[in-house]
């Protein structure tokens, strides 16, 4: 499959090893930016990005506000900020109210990313313990994005992929190994 521009991944409880696995399976010259909207402990500002970086083949960074988006980089939503994709190929951050008790909010990253990338975006929802991400992936789907949920049977905590599947007709429901393969197979 081709004609893509960005990958957006949302996850919460139980998602850390999955995201590590995804990042370690992507090639060094991955042709897309990867946006990671992951719930995290609010007051631990450092450490997470390092932990994700260890096995990743592409750089993992917590972007600054208005940072330019480049392919081959994973952008992790910083602690206590929402991460938005802004028109003009930059990232914008926000301290707006929490959504579904979450900041970063998975819904908001999916919403803003799909507003910009439309059918050029792949959205993936993996393990998590609340329903954040469901509204975001529904909107992404409405805007033509390609949507994937982790197979709930495989997820450590299935609430989040279950909610995504309920909210919109996913293009695929896949195991984490299949998600990795799919993300490697897609082309710009």
């Amino acid at each position, binding site marked *: 499959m081709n004609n893509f521009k960005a990958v957006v991944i949302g996850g919460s409880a139980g998602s850390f090893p999955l995201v590590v696995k995804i990042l370690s399976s992507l090639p060094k010259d991955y042709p897309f930016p990867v946006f990671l909207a992951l719930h995290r402990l609010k007051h631990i500002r450092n450490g997470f990005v390092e932990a994700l970086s260890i096995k990743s083949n592409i750089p993992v960074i917590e972007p600054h*506000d*208005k940072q330019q988006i480049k392919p081959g980089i994973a952008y992790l939503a910083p602690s*206590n900020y929402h991460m*938005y994709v802004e*028109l003009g190929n930059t990232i914008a951050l*926000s*301290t*707006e109210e929490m959504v579904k008790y979450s900041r970063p909010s998975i819904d908001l990253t999916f919403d803003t990313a799909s507003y910009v990338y439309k059918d050029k975006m792949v959205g993936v929802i993996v393990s998590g313990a609340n329903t954040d991400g469901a509204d975001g992936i529904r909107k992404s789907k409405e805007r033509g994005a390609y949507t994937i949920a982790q197979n709930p049977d495989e997820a450590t905590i299935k609430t989040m992929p279950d909610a995504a599947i309920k909210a919109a007709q996913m293009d695929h429901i896949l195991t984490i190994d299949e998600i990795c393969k799919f993300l490697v197979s897609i082309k710009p």
Partner: protein
Amino acid sequence: MEIEIDIKEIRTLVTAIKTNYGFDFGEYALSSFKRRLSRILEVYKFENMQKLTDRVATDKPFYELFLKEVTVNTTEMFRDPSFWKKMKESVFPLVKDFPVIRIWHSACSSGEEVYSMAIALKEAGLYDKARIFASDINEDVIAKALEGKYPARNMELNGFNYEKYEGPKKLNNYFKTNGDYAYMDLDLLKNVTFKKFDLVQGDQFQRFDIILCRNVLIYFNLPLQDQVIAKFAKCMSLGGFLAVGSKETIAWCKSAENFSTFSLEEKIYQKKI
């Protein structure tokens, strides 16, 4: 069902506001501005953007309300404790011998950071020589700051931040809880002046040694960020300190040439001498 907002509709609204009231949202960051509009459509039950635009354009009191709704006022006491620690340990020692320490909270919201600063200064023995100017575009949040009354449930997080900041006391030394609210010790405002001020269009004629502008620039696009940073540069003493949010940077602004980096990690810049 949420209404999908088109960029053209946002431009129409921005033009209508500019024409009728002279206020320019054209350089606000689009994604957050759009989200604020979604929220307003929902809360005030507008069927579409056209109806909101018509109402804002023709109803001045509603426009005033719109201005307040569109700005973001989330804040915490001692938010980013490591930042406040850096202020205490590295910035305060450099200003402690000033006869007067002039501080500007340039978008003070409901005042949590003003109280944090007052507490930090007090504990450092610097409060009496501090003159704190706190401003915001929204007078409702200024009224909240002056009242010093916050939901008691917020104090847990604020207290947690204060502990991480390694304050010498307990945060509850500075407030009393009564029912659902915490009431701040208003003595902390003795040297604080609040004023309504628009960071984008207002002119600042005072000079400051420390300016806080944390998590405000994120709602602006880069040209407007640059403009505001340039404004700060003009009203700061040489060697004065400018603090922005932990994930904000002035690095991409032309006006950054007026500053050197004092703490990269905590986003504290120093006006070049």
